[in-house]
């Protein structure tokens, strides 16, 4: 299977503090890979390195076999790497639909100059994009909120809009940064269903960074565990959770030996 995204010896230090140390891993096409680890283990650093928000101190990021270490986020985005954020990010002065249309515009919209000189064409494109945005929103049962300001929605609804924004652009890989954070149990069920559907119906490759073990165990094909910036496990979810090193990292040595 083709590797969509791959990290080789990826290292990030913040003023001497090593947040991620010689991290090797890859996500194959069509896989749902979970990335877990205790707070401060370096999960968000991985997401930010892969999406170009941070540049690595050393090591490489390969996207479909090509080196894009340190490339700017907008470059990485154009390659088909979409992401969501732990603290939901949506454009606050735009409606739900406009939020998605804007993401589509960056992938397939008319150019800056063309949209200025050929308004008719730009408006026609916008109609098609709006229709596509609505269709994607319908999938998440959010089409009735299309005209609302994104920030007027509940957290659960905003999370769905973030997912719709990524899915609408047909990403090669979709990185979800703690999508269950702040969701009620019912919304977590909904999230699990939608992550599965994105892969099964749309063939989207997914990297899922998550705290909530229920989500990881029910959707992931494979789980990678980080602790103190080091990879400590990589394998099937049911086996990884029984790994003594993982138990130690999550619960602590003293108690795990008593248990």
């Amino acid at each position, binding site marked *: 299977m083709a590797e969509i995204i791959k990290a080789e010896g990826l290292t990030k230090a913040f003023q001497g503090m090593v947040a991620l140390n010689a991290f090797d891993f890859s996500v194959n096409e069509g896989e749902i890979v979970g990335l877990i680890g205790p707070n401060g283990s370096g999960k968000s650093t991985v997401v930010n390195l892969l*999406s*170009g*928000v941070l540049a690595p101190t050393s090591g490489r990021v390969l996207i479909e076999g090509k080196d894009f270490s340190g490339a*700017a*986020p*907008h470059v990485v*985005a*154009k390659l088909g790497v979409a*992401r969501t*954020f732990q603290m939901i*990010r*949506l*454009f*606050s*002065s*735009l409606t739900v639909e406009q939020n998605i249309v*804007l*993401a589509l*515009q*960056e*992938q397939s*919209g*008319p*150019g*800056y100059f063309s*949209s*200025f000189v050929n*308004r008719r064409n*730009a408006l026609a494109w916008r109609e098609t994009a709006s229709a596509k945005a609505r269709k994607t929103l319908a999938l998440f049962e959010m089409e009735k909120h299309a005209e609302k300001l994104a920030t007027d929605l509940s957290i659960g609804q905003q999370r769905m809009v973030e997912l719709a*924004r990524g899915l609408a*652009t047909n990403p090669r890989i979709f990185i979800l940064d703690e999508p269950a954070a702040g969701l009620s149990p019912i919304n977590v069920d909904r999230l699990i269903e939608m992550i599965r559907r994105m892969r099964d119906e749309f063939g989207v490759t997914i990297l899922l960074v998550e705290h909530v073990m229920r989500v990881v165990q029910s959707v992931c094909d494979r789980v990678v565990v980080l602790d103190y910036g080091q990879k400590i496990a990589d394998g099937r979810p049911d086996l990884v959770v029984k790994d003594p090193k993982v138990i130690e990292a999550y619960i602590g040595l003293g108690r795990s030996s008593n248990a």
Partner: protein
Amino acid sequence: MRTILLILLAAAAFALMPTIVGGGYFINIAIVVCIYIILASSLDIVMGWTGLYSFAHAAFLGIGAYTAAILGRDFGTTFWINLPMGMIVAGLFGFLLGLPLLRAQGHFLAIMTIAFQTIVYLVLSQWTDFTGGQYGIEVEPVAGFTALSSFFYLVLAFATICLIAIRLLTQSRLGDSLQAIRDDETLARTIGINSKAIKLVAFAISSSFAGGAGVLLAYHIRGVTPDDYTVLASATVVAMVVLGGRGRFWGPVMGAALLIVLPELLSSLAEYKHVFYGAVLILVTMLAPQGLAGKFLEWRAR
């Protein structure tokens, strides 16, 4: 489309003014209103649409004006060459100022623009050989437009073109990207917007319109002196945008018209107009942070 039609209608109505109130005094005010409408609307590209507070707009006004004056003095070029040259030179300086600004945000960015504004003023007033120092440079009136009313039509035509161009720009993909950067730059970048390039382009375009306004101002007052291009003038343009309403097309237009006309109406106020502008800024920020245009939309939504 409706807005562009409204711009043309407003310009046509404005064009009738000299035949109704013929006095030179009124035409003078009308010319200054047009120039400041260009200034405020172009500042709004960076201030309202992109959310970058710039207190350097009068510097670009000055760069445009001095480009025209110096070209005319040293090379004898005409208005029709000086106008595009003033826009190009101001646009270039806007691009150059944009480069360091990419590294700053919020208050720090505003302070850097004030520093740039101050440097430009010092160069204009101190480099006597080149700029004429405090005496400035004289500018010959535009050939064929020496009569005040015909010059007014020239300024009105240029302002109309600028407003239509700004409208089309902000309605194009550029406007979407600017808004995205203003709302959340990190998100804008992760969906694929090259925010640095877009911000530079916005600065260059905005400055170039200000440069054009500067060329018109130089020909209007038939000369350039550094004291017309101080940080106070910049703050006035900021006040116009804030009063009118940031990021709304008619906001800066209304703001500019009001802040030019009001001090003239209350002529006793003219002497204290900077105090007046300051008071307006404070009151508007407290009572109507979205400006008059924002208040109007609020009122209509009810």
